[in-house]
């Protein structure tokens, strides 16, 4: 730990970490970097949480991890750093894989301009993932510069304190402001499993029912905001060519109405009792169709928390029912899954655009509002 550190100091300390010592030298350890990850934590407590998550993600994606957080106290030094090594598979000396973490603790005003320092300690030629755990700022210098330079920015809309404002902002300006940076939302990864479960109900012959959907019901935990349910509805709408013609919403509602080729489609968002720690989850989705042979497709969480039941009824007769595993994803799982793919996801982009037609956002000018 020093004051007024330079990038060279950090590099020197990192190199020092890996100087062969005793037994480690004999067994030959490997440093592997597959990515750079820069994470921002809003305070000391958040710092602990984020650091814990990074420690888990590193197991799947060894790389250089940089955690930036504000100093707890204004009397502390403007910038301090800590370096540490992370090694995996200690049990198998043949496979010891190591990488490193740099923690930067700085005064708030220093963080504003810390981006250049962060760039200088990245491992060259590797992707840069930037994880911003909080709400979307309208303007923040650190965020702004990082978002422009990173390969991809990760947000977690499940943790937004003001989801309508933040998601509205993402939908409204991301692609104009940061055209070269991929935006990823951890919440989207969580929802993808529901998407897969719903999608497989409509393979083969059953695809025809997609054009006859009349009503969708999404159950979510009471007391939480139904953001994830809104995403799911927006995804269905974006993929099935439905439009949202109603006025934009400034608060979550329990009913959305879309216009599709088949007419009006109603999406009902229903809160159901749920333990606090699971409230933000989706509990069930039902899709009802109209037509010659009415059908009902459902995916429901089972009593066993590790499974869900997917079933369909055509003409009030059971067509099929199946049970599939559904493990809860923690934040580290979500990031580990997300880091696997680098390609931009056009479906996510479309869904976010659809969210933009549903939610209002606070930076809209009066002009824009009038045009809508």
């Amino acid at each position, binding site marked *: 730990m020093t004051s007024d550190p330079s990038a060279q100091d950090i590099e020197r300390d990192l190199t020092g970490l890996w100087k062969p010592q005793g037994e480690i030298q004999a067994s030959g350890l490997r440093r592997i970097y597959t990515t750079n990850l820069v994470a921002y934590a809003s305070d000391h407590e958040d710092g602990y949480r984020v650091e814990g998550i990074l420690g888990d993600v590193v197991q799947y994606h060894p790389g250089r991890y940089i955690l930036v957080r504000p100093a707890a106290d204004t009397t502390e030094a403007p910038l301090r750093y800590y370096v540490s090594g992370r090694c995996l598979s200690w049990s198998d000396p043949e496979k010891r894989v190591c990488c490193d973490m740099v923690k930067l603790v700085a005064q708030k005003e220093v963080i504003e301009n810390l981006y250049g320092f962060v760039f200088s300690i990245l491992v060259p030629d590797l992707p840069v993932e930037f994880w911003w755990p909080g709400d979307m700022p309208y303007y923040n210098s650190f965020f702004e510069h990082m978002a422009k330079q990173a390969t991809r920015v990760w947000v977690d809309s499940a943790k937004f304190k003001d989801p309508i404002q933040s998601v509205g902002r993402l939908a409204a300006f991301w692609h104009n402001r940061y055209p070269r940076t991929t935006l990823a939302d951890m919440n989207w990864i969580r929802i993808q499993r529901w998407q897969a479960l719903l999608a*497989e109900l409509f393979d083969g012959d059953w695809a025809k029912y*997609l054009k006859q959907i009349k009503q969708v019901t999404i159950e979510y935990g009471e007391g939480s905001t139904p953001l994830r349910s809104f995403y799911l509805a927006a995804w269905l709408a974006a993929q099935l060519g439905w439009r949202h013609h109603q006025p934009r919403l400034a608060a979550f509602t329990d009913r959305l109405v879309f216009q599709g080729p088949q007419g009006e489609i109603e999406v009902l968002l229903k809160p159901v009792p749920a333990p606090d720690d699971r409230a933000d989850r989706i509990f069930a989705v039902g899709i009802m169709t109209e037509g010659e042979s009415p059908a009902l497709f459902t995916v429901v969480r089972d009593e066993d928390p590790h499974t869900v039941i997917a079933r369909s009824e055509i003409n009030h007769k059971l067509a099929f029912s199946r049970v599939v595993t559904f493990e809860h994803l923690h934040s580290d799982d979500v990031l580990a899954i997300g880091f696997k793919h680098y390609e931009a996801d056009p479906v996510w982009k479309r869904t976010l655009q659809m969210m933009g037609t549903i939610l209002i956002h606070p930076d809209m000018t009066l002009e824009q509002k009038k045009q809508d």
Partner: protein
Amino acid sequence: MPTPVLLENPLRQGLSSGRTAPPCSLVIYGASGDLTVRKLVPALFELYEKHLLPVSFNLIGISRSVISDEDFRKKLKDFLAKAKPQFSEAVWNSFSQNFHYIAGGYDDFKVYQALSARLDELDEKNGTMGNRIFYLSTPPNVFEVIISNLGAAGLAKEDKGFSRVVIEKPFGHDLESAKELNVKVREVFKEHQIYRIDHYLGKETVQNFLVMRFANSIFEPIWNRRHVDHIQITASEDLGVGTRAGYYESAGILRDMFQNHLFQVMCLIAMEPPVTFEANAIRDEKLKILQAIRPFDEHSVKHLAVRGQYGPGFLAGQKVPGYREEEGVNPKSNTPTYAAIKIFLDTWRWHGVPFLLRSAKRLPKRTTEAAIQFKEPPNLLFKNNLNTLTPNVLIIRIQPDEGITLKFDTKVPGMTMEGRTVNMDFRYGTSFAEGTSEAYERLLLDCMLGDATLFIRGDEAEAAWAALMPVIHHWETTEPETPFPNYEAGTWGPVEADNMLERPWRHWRKV
């Protein structure tokens, strides 16, 4: 060829499970056997858990053993429940709800008629749309009878959906029988319906040969006779013949490993870039390599191929018996359990570069790898270091511990100009979060999707046999040059194999 049933399902778009198979029925012949229990059904279960198996899916097992649907499912379940740490009974029940079993002889036409009716019924009930795959997981002596009966029962027709046949290895016992089998299969199925399995091609690292060679621009310019000294492909096993003595006695190491796995790996290393990444474009290029193998004759085979058989020895400190003492093996058997072959490819790119292929049982360790050994630099400046500097080697490890290693020389820090060879290592297990899938998972899924890239085409199978037959013939009609057993279990094989390397700087790798 009818277009495979495409899923007009917009909700599938963009999902990581985008390669989900279309609705279909899988019929496994020889379903009471080991392969079904240990490999095929576990692979299907993995696909189910990854949402890659369609909701509409039926499995029908057929073999002679008389067992009920219930017992069939129980046998499959018992294996998985033990093998999978987080096995869920409810998920299993759901996965296996459309599993059925038919007991019957492979030559009994009534069984095929019953099967046909059952498949129609299941199509109707479960929406499998007339798509069928017939998987022959029996010993090869019944392949032909099953195929001709499938034809007679009209099950090879593709009028409603697709009909495909998967044929397990070995594909023929020699060139003649492979040709005959090809004729018989093609009387019933068209080539696009035939999927000849070589499970090596389902392995992630084997597929990585293609990506490594053709997605990187740094390897291709040096991938030729000007830069490569020789190539070694090794598939070593520490196990002995185990319970497979019956099969092994008539097959031997050449049929078991070379005709299929090792030749396929060689093809992927040696082939020219295909014009597209489609099945036939890739298979055309592989075929050219097999056809370019310089033919062995009575004379050349003696110094280009070395055979061996293990005697008693020690593995992991335990005494193990010799091949001739194994259960079910003729005590005077001359079946080879070790083979090393030097192959020359008569192509522009590889002229004069030996491909050294080696496979054996009861070597010190189980490893499969390909090593591209590059030439020495033209002017060796560091003459004092001749013992510590070695030519570059690119090693592609197929199993275990899949990955790539590049050996290169570097300076040892200090005042003297001292060099040393170091490894640059890439390991799948540590660089990618996702573990590599079992080969059968990939191959079953590809077959359901109608992608034959990782399967062997009929002409490839014949060309591989044609190249190998002179060696097989020579070994089967002459006594071993040094009497068997000629290597101790737990060692790297007979010393004669070293002589075939010819150049002082070439050594068999201790893998």
